[in-house]
Structures are given as structure tokens and as C-alpha cells.
């Protein structure tokens, strides 16, 4: 076991982990931040996307120890300080961008990373950016609409 220390959603945290402990397991099991979902655990679906030093990554495909000293943001860090929904989250709610909600944390994290890089993406750019995020419910249409609305609201 080794000790890992990182900043998660603005707070410094540390915990005991094995070499093989995934970042997704660390945030879910050690920190009880269960908003990060595990859909496939094989790097395909994107439900587990978090930001590490501002970059979207699949937390099921990174070890917790690799995030030593990093700044990590999970879906729990996307709300406003008063607990109300952040801009991207609100846009998903307003535009019916989710049905079962399983893919949504990863969708929101990918969307936020896209808008950070490209504040006014075209529909094609949005669809390309979501290539690694799979949704079984919505058919993607309202997810794209939500992201367009979030871009317009920002």
C-alpha cells in the first residue's frame, strides 16, 4: 500500500491505495464520490470521465497513484458553491439531455472540457468530441442540444 495525495474538487485529500487502484475506484470507494460511474471498465464508454489538471480522462484507465499531486474535478465539483446546478448541468436538465442518467456524469465532464477548449462549438464538433461517451438512451440529440444551450448560456 502507498499513500496518495491530490486535490479533488478543491479539497486536499489523501488515502491508502494499492499500485493497481484505479482513479475511478479511489474517488468512488475512498472518497465516496459515487457520481463518477463505471459503465464498461474497458475504456470504451466514458461514464467515468473526470478532469485531471483540467483535461478530460477516463478515470477507469488511470491509476490513483498517477494522479499524485494533481488537481481532479469530478461531477460533484460541477455544481455551484450554493449547491445549485452548474451551467452545463442545468442545460442538460432544461433540454432533457438525460433519460436514465447513467452516462450523464461523463457527458457533463466531457462537455465542460469541450467548452473550455472551444466555447462555441459547432454541432459536428460537439458530436466528434463525444466520440468516447456512449449513451444507450437519448440518441444523443438532446445531449448535443444541451451542450449548445450551455455554450449559449455561458
Amino acid at each position: 500500500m502507498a499513500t496518495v495525495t491530490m486535490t479533488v474538487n478543491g479539497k486536499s485529500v489523501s488515502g491508502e491505495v494499492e499500485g493497481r487502484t484505479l482513479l475511478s475506484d479511489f474517488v468512488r470507494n475512498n472518497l465516496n464520490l459515487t457520481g463518477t460511474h463505471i459503465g464498461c471498465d474497458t475504456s470504451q464508454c466514458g461514464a467515468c470521465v473526470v478532469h485531471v489538471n483540467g483535461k478530460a480522462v477516463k478515470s477507469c484507465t488511470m491509476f490513483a497513484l498517477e494522479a499524485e499531486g494533481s488537481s481532479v474535478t469530478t461531477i460533484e465539483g460541477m455544481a455551484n458553491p450554493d449547491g445549485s446546478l452548474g451551467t452545463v448541468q442545468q442545460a442538460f436538465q432544461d433540454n432533457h439531455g438525460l433519460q436514465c442518467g447513467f452516462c450523464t456524469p461523463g457527458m457533463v465532464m466531457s462537455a465542460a472540457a469541450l467548452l473550455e477548449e472551444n466555447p462555441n462549438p459547432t454541432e459536428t464538433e460537439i458530436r466528434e468530441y463525444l466520440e468516447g461517451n456512449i449513451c444507450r438512451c437519448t440518441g444523443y440529440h438532446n445531449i448535443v442540444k444541451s451542450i449548445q444551450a450551455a455554450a449559449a448560456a455561458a
Partner: protein
Amino acid sequence: MYDFALQRPQSLNEAIEALSAEGAEVLAGGQTLIPTLKNRLASPDVLVSIGGISELQGVSETDGTVSIKAGTTHGVVAATVESYPALASLAGNIGDPAVRNRGTIGGSLANNDPSACYPAAALASNASITTNKRTISASDFFMGLFETSLDEGELITQVDFPVPDAANYQKFDQPASRFALVGVFVAKYGNDVRVAVTGASEDGVFRWSEAESALASNFSSSAIDGLEVDSEGMIEDIHGSKSYRANLVKVMTKRAVAAC
């Protein structure tokens, strides 16, 4: 996944030292290695993560050469390489954004997946692959399916690409894996044309020499109209038969030449 010790050296020398231990293996972006470990297809005792080593990060462009340090991610290559647009665009179409934020050029070349994109660029450009021990020309580097000429514990540190006069990469996506079903990289250096094909052969990336000769005397997509690719030795799976892949090699080569 079997357990292992994860080390994070901060310098190249420490990493090379750590890799000399029995049962030690490099961890770069983990986008191939972590899924492999989850399937228990590898069981290293020690993983040496090179992510924290600044000497292994970055791109520089001088005198017609693009030099990329081994730990540079696909995302960084896509966003920074200016003098070799076909290479930047290849990097920008690997997998998806999250994969590109972690996956590295060194990991992609060392892994030599038969459907990976970078091996095609390296072979078509006759890139030089530098390790902690030597420099290997791309023509001598790829040794078939997932095999390279790297020795145990040998670490790729840098890859140098001579910038061609014209080049293009055409990837026929396999939409489920997001790898190439077939990908063709064409690069033209003066009268010398190199055509490297990924995704198609059971022996991994290869050069289509008939197309190269035809294109050397007439650099236009019609120059390969009369050529046929032998379907013997092509990959066959649920996504495409041997003859389908053989035909795609020709189609993608024509598209790449037309787009040069």
C-alpha cells in the same frame, strides 16, 4: 488485475535504472496497458510510470524534422505540430479526446498494435526511433503483430519524423473500437513515395511497394488503378473479410494520394 508496485521516477536516469529490475515494465498513458492488465494478459511486478518525467515531454520542429519526445500525448501532438499537418491530423483522430489526453506516441509505437495509426506514419516517414540505447530506423523497428525490435527494459525516448513534401493519412474507422479498420499513410519525399498500411495485414504495418513504384513515376491516384492487393495474409474478422480489407487498402491509398 494482479497487483504490482507503481513507481513514479522524476528523471530519465531514474526510470532507466528502475526498468533494469526483473519484472519491471514501462507505464506511459496506460490506454493499452491498463486494459491489458485488467484482462490479466500481463503481470509485471513493477510498473514504472514515465508520466512525471519532463525530459520525455514535448515537440520541437527544426530543419525539416519534427521531433517528438516519447511521453508526448496524442492531444499535444495534434495541437502543436505545425510543419507536418498529416501527422498532427493523424494524432487528432486517434480514439477520442480522453484517450488522446493520456495516450502517448512512445506507447503506441512500442505496442505496435496491427490496427494502430502511428506505426503507419512512422513507417511511411521512415522515422528514427531513439531509445536509451540506440536509434532504430522505422524500417527495422516493426517486427509483426505487437512485436518490435526493442529489447527488454529498453525505453523509447524520442521519435524524429523527416517532414515530407506532401503527405496524407486516410483512416477507415472501425467505429466500435475507434481504431483503423484499414489506414493508409502516403508520404512523398522528392521522387520517393512511401505507402504504409495499417489495420490490414496479419503481420502488422507494411509498405505497399507496388503502389510506391507506380506513384514514384506518376503521383496521381489513377497510377494505382491497375494494381490489385493480394488478399492472402490480410486480417479477417467480423468487421471485414480478407478481400474487403485488400480492396480497402487500394481505395484508401487512392484517397490519400488525391488528398495530398
